[in-house]
């Protein structure tokens, strides 16, 4: 009940950004899928209209299979961007609006308050870019629509960007919660998130990638939790 109230509040505060990110990805994805510009330069509707009677879709097999390349590129910016914005909204804005005191005097533990913020963040990612990315992938793989199904790694790759968004969120939270100066350790959270993202992007062995991602997330989570629990407001 109390957790739900907190979660609702955090989600509602994330809503505009969640919608913005989701709609942006949806727009880019739709454009890419519907108005796909293949190597031949033939547009999707031309391709449909231009099919001669009796011609099969196999004729067009030579069209580029990577229909989600462009949306994936966008997602690699949208997801960290959403992480940054949500981190600012959840941990920074209350410092300016001075609502921390009101929020923290709830009949719940501080951990619950943090949990609600993190929960809202994960939900925000899943409900916007997560669902839409999966939807785009599913759409692109529908049999009969496109010549070649997208490989699964395209889907996984998108979700990897989403997890990177969460890394950026935690880094932003850490910087927001720091009480030191910018030019000393306050910048650390953001820098760490950025470097970690770049490092992870450069890994290509799945096992390493998985292990390092888990490590980075665990480190950031532990730091953020301890900073939140001990911070003075």
């Amino acid at each position, binding site marked *: 009940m*109390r957790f739900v109230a907190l979660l609702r509040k955090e989600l509602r*505060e994330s809503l505009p950004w969640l919608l913005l990110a989701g709609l942006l990805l949806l727009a880019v994805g739709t454009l890419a899928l519907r108005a796909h510009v293949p190597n031949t330069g033939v547009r999707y509707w031309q391709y449909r209209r231009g099919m001669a009677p009796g011609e099969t879709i196999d004729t067009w097999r030579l069209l580029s299979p990577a229909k989600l390349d462009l949306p994936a590129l966008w997602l690699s910016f949208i997801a960290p961007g959403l992480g940054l914005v949500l981190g600012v909204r959840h941990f920074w804005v209350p410092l300016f609006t001075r*609502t*921390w*005191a009101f929020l923290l005097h*709830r*009949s719940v533990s501080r951990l619950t308050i943090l949990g609600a913020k993190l929960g809202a963040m994960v939900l925000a990612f899943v409900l916007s870019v997560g669902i839409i990315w999966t939807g785009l992938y599913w759409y692109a793989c529908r049999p009969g629509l496109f010549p070649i199904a997208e490989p699964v790694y395209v889907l996984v790759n998108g979700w990897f960007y989403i997890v990177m968004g969460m890394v950026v969120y935690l880094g932003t939270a850490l910087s927001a919660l720091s009480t030191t100066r910018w030019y000393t350790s306050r910048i650390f959270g953001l820098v760490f998130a950025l470097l970690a993202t770049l490092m992870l992007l450069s890994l290509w062995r799945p096992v390493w990638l998985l292990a390092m991602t888990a490590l980075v997330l665990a480190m950031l989570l532990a730091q953020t939790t301890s900073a939140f629990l001990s911070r*003075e407001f």
Partner: protein
Amino acid sequence: MAEIVLETKGLTKYYGAQPALDHLDLRIPRGCICGFLGRNGAGKTTAIKMMLGLLEPTAGSASLLGCDSTDLTPAIRQRIGYVTEGHRLFRWMTIARLEKFQQAFFPEQWDEKFFADMIEYFELSKKQKIKHLSNGQRAQVSLALALAPNPELLIMDDPTLGLDAVIRRQFLEGMIELITRQGRTVLFSSHILADVERVADRIVVIDKGVLRADCSLEQFRASVRKVVLYFDDSVPADVELEGLLHCRRSERQLELTLVGVDEAEVAAWAKRAGTERYDFVEMNLEDQFIEFTAPPHRRRLFQWEEARP
């Protein structure tokens, strides 16, 4: 002896090398309205934030309803109302949504009718958004939110700062309303001495982080006094009276501000100093507060300087 609902023991907070609060010892019993006074920057907000576990004490401890402030359990918080400085609420929420949010944390004790009545009394509508309210209206919402769960202990950080007389009076009414219910306790900090005088039965005065007074309002009113002594020729150079706060002198008059000195002592000293003529000057609470907390006047702030020859 009533149960102690708010206690601090040597509560201290340093920012760098500066003490914002220095060894505050307080014991507030159940059932009183305690006015927490001090000039700007005296350490009131720091003390209140430590009581509510928002700041970590550098030394000492605070406890509310018997629970240490650094570790207030949800069950204890549920019995405490806190009105934050400046009545900062979530700006995007409507009053109705904020009510629902607040209610979720006081599930058993939320008085829906009381809240609705207050909102109506304040001529607000639950559909209004916080960001569209004036400062005063936001303060009213904040008061209603704090009172509707019927808290056992209500702590308010300068709730009437910058508010007009009507809304200030509503806060006082709210406090009286709460205190007339059995076993409620209020601690509020304020700059407005007249408000404090009306509703407080106990006052705590801190100055530069140091506790200066903790007594009943009547005791404070009776103990800070000003007396003017008239002398025939010259005013004595030294005043040997314990409890002397300030001393101003003119050619044949001596004005003393005293704390905790009774009339007999004044009379005895006056006789030794060579006069029997003296008058006590009545002071209101504000004057008493200023005399009590103002630094000793070595020189006037505004002094006409005669051109020196």
